[in-house]
C-alpha cells in the first residue's frame, strides 16, 4: 500500500477526531488528504508529536485525538509508548506510517530497516491494542473497528517506500499562524479557552 492511500483510508474514518501529525511525510500527507485546519502539523521536535498528542488527549478527554506518526519519528522517541501506556487515555489513537525510510530527506534507510516489530514494542510497553496492517484491503476492513474502539491503541501501517523524494507540499501556513488557527478551532469546537482575553 502507498502512504497516500493509507493516509486517505485512515482520514476517511476520522469523524470529528483532532489530528496531531509528525513533521515531514505524515504532516504533508495528512494535509494533502484532508486540508484540515483543526489538525496540528509539527514543524520540529521530531519524535514528540506523540507526546504533544498525549498532552492534548489528557487535557481534552472528550475529544478523540488521533496521532499520525511516522517510523522515523517513533524511533526518535520510543519512550512515548511507555508514557502513553501508563496514562492509558481512552481518547488517543496512535497511527504510524511505516515506510522504512527517512522519506522527506530522500528515502535514506531507517535504522534496523525491515527488522523492527513496532507493534510488538508497543505491546511490550503495555498497549494491548497494537497491530500491524500491511495492505489497503486489510486497512479498509479494520478501520471501522479501530475508529470505534477505546484507546490507547497502536496501529502500524506498513507502506511501500517511495524512491527518492515524495515532494508532497506542506500545509500552506506555519509556526504562529498554525498555533492560532489550531487553538481557535479547538476553542470554537469544544468551548474551551486556549487564549486569554488579550489574545495570548
Amino acid at each position, binding site marked *: 500500500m502507498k502512504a497516500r492511500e493509507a493516509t486517505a483510508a485512515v482520514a476517511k474514518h476520522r469523524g470529528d477526531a483532532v489530528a496531531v501529525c509528525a513533521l515531514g511525510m505524515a504532516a504533508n500527507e495528512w494535509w494533502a488528504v484532508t486540508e484540515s485546519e483543526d489538525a496540528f502539523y509539527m514543524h520540529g521536535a521530531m519524535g514528540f508529536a506523540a507526546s504533544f498528542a498525549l*498532552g492534548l488527549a489528557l487535557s481534552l478527554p472528550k475529544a478523540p485525538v488521533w496521532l499520525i506518526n511516522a517510523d522515523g519519528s517513533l524511533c526518535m522517541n520510543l519512550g512515548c509508548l511507555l508514557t502513553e501506556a501508563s496514562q492509558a487515555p481512552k481518547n488517543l489513537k496512535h497511527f504510524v506510517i511505516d515506510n522504512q525510510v527517512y522519506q522527506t530527506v530522500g528515502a535514506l534507510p531507517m535504522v534496523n530497516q525491515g527488522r523492527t516489530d513496532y507493534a510488538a514494542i508497543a505491546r511490550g510497553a503495555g498497549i494491548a491494542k497494537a497491530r500491524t496492517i500491511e495492505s489497503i484491503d486489510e486497512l479498509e476492513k479494520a478501520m471501522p473497528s479501530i475508529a470505534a474502539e477505546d484507546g490507547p491503541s497502536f496501529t502500524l501501517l506498513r507502506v511501500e517506500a517511495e524512491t527518492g523524494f515524495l515532494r508532497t507540499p506542506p500545509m500552506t501556513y506555519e509556526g504562529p499562524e498554525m498555533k492560532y488557527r489550531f487553538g481557535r478551532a479547538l476553542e470554537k469546537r469544544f468551548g474551551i479557552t486556549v487564549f486569554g482575553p488579550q489574545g495570548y
Partner: protein
Amino acid sequence: MDVNEKIHEQLKKAGVALAASLPDDWVAPLINRIAADNTIRHVRVAREAEAVAICSGAFFGGVRSVALMGATGLLTCTGELATLNLRHQIPVFLIVSQRGSIDDHRIYQEVQGRRTIPLLQSYDFPYHIVNEPDEISSIPDAYETCRLQKRPFVLFLTRNLVKGNAV
C-alpha cells in the same frame, strides 16, 4: 509550611492542572507532592522533551501545565524547546533545579552550572531564580510572563531553597 508545599500552593494559584516530570534529587520531593494531589494530572515521562511536548499539547486543550526536571534534563530538550515552542510560539513553564551552583559540590553538575544560563540567554528564553522561601509567591507572576512572552520560561530552584543546609 515547607518550601515544596509553598511551591505546590503557588502552582495551583497559577491555575496549573497538569504536571509532567522527570526527577532529579532536588525536585523529587516537589514531584512527590504533586503526584499525591489528585486535582493535578501527573504524567511521569521517560525523557524531559516528552514533558515539554505534553505541556505544549495541554496548552491547546486549555489546560495550564508545568514541566518539572533537573538542569541536566533541561539541556537535553533545548532542541525541542527551540523547534516546537519557539517555532510555534507556544508557552511552556518549566521548574528546574539550578544545579552546578557554588554550593552544589558535584563534579557532574559543573558544566550545567556554567553554561545553562548563557544557553537560555542565547535562545532568549526568560528565566527567574527563586532562592528564598519568600520569593515563591512570584510563581503566578512568572507563569503569566511565560504566557505573555509565548515561549519557554524557566523557574530555577536553588540549592539554598530546596536543600537548605542539608548535605
